[in-house]
């Protein structure tokens, strides 16, 4: 069993395998399952992701009315041909938003690694597939590779916003996606780790400050930027750029930052954007109380 990214990459290198192979084999061993059973479960998760994106791209609205419809706006903008950052990147962004809008509307999603960060991995996968034309198996491998890196973060740091801030949620998701994009595009296991490190470095310190305590503002847009971050970092790693700080040390830094983060900025809706005048106003409106009555 691999405990950190260095061991994961070493295992893949030594046996001349992909990161996804290492994760698939470990899962078979730990759960005492056949390869087919492990793939079947992942296939069901992939189907849930496909259905969520499809639903989000048609337009949804959350119960609070705070989020919904932005995925459609971005798709329309892409279709206008005027996009500046490129169609593939924006497609990933819109599909990440689509998934997270469905999540905010209490729709069915697959947590990757959490529900609040569920947009990034499928968003990038469904955008990149238009360029790389992966088989179904390659799409499932994308999820296993994401899972391998998420597994390391979850066991050595945290994937919970309440424990480690949004860096632990969308930050982890973006790192996981970056590594998976890199593998799908033909990068080496070491390049996958570089992509993860570069991404997570740029998500460090990200607080979890949901307005009204809802997984909506700013969560949906953070999924968008997590997807963009993952795409750019994957490209950088594929170009040969490396992280000066090794991936495991970045994960460790993320954990320590999370530990020192004030409780107000860890999913309690007591600080950050949640505590802005507008954030408080929205909270009062949604939950039907007047602001001066809330202590």
């Amino acid at each position: 069993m691999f405990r950190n990214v260095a061991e994961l990459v070493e295992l893949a290198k030594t046996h001349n395998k992909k990161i996804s192979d290492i994760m698939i084999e470990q899962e078979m061993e730990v759960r005492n399952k056949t390869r087919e059973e492990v793939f079947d479960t992942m296939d069901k998760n992939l189907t849930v992701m496909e259905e969520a994106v499809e639903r989000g791209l048609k337009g949804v609205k959350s119960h609070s009315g705070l989020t919904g419809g932005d995925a459609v706006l971005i798709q329309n903008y892409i279709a206008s041909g005027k996009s500046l950052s490129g169609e593939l990147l924006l497609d990933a962004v819109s599909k990440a938003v689509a998934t997270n809008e469905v999540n905010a509307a209490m729709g069915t999603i697959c947590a990757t690694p959490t529900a609040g960060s569920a947009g990034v991995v499928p968003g990038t996968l469904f955008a990149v597939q238009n360029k790389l034309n992966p088989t179904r198996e390659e799409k499932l491998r994308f999820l296993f590779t994401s899972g391998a890196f998420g597994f390391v973060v979850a066991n050595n740091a945290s994937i919970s916003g309440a424990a480690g801030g949004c860096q632990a949620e969308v930050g982890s998701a973006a790192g996981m996606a970056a590594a998976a994009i890199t593998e799908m595009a033909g990068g080496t296991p070491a390049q996958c780790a570089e992509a993860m490190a570069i991404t997570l470095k740029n998500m460090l310190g990200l607080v979890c400050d949901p307005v009204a305590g809802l997984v909506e503002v700013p969560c949906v847009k953070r999924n968008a930027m997590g997807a963009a971050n993952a795409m750019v970092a994957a490209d950088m790693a594929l170009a040969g750029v490396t992280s000066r700080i090794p991936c495991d040390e970045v994960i460790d830094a993320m954990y320590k930052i999370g530990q020192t983060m004030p409780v107000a900025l860890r999913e309690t809706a007591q600080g950050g954007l949640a505590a802005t005048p507008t954030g408080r106003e929205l909270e009062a409106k949604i939950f039907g109380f007047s602001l001066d009555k809330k202590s």
Partner: protein
Amino acid sequence: MKYKSVFDIIGPVMIGPSSSHTAGAARIGKMARELFGREPEWANLSFYGSFAKTYKGHGTDVAMIGGIMDFETDDERIIEAKKIARDRGIRIKIREEEALTDHPNTARIKLGDKDGEMELVGISIGGGKIEIIELNGFELSLTGHHPAILVVHEDRFGAVAAVSTVLARHKMNIGKMDVSRQDVGKMALMTIEVDQHIEDALLTELKALPEVTQVTKITD
């Protein structure tokens, strides 16, 4: 290693919006239901930390109520759980607690009916994964590193031997085992950490033992 499976990371399939506050809450509720063994007539839910501050927006309350009614994390009935509980005649009380707990996402659930009561404390550690840290006043000393089985049983001779015999027959190796009881001859609890994957057949066999009142697997 608290997370053992890739599906702890890519999954669960669930109703939004929060894996720790919605799916985790549903799982804590479901665990309570399994340990209680039947649908309760009433449930008192106490939320601490981030659970207390944000449960309304995350649907933590409805998810936990859904779990208590045995709903899975992806059961769309979770959204209507309060109404369904009302229709089924389950009385629900929710308290927002101010006390500080070790983990930010902590919940205490008391379930009961005319035949008995049960109380547990669960924490939601992220990504939908949960731990039960207290059961009927028994502190659970689970490391979280291995699959574990909880056996609620009557405090009498032969109970430990009967359970360990079944485990041996299933070729399960016990890594750590705790036996604690409320009082001599009353309810007791075995906490068993094992090295192997826990199959449902094993749980069924344990449940059939005359000394045993409830069995559930907890961190697999």
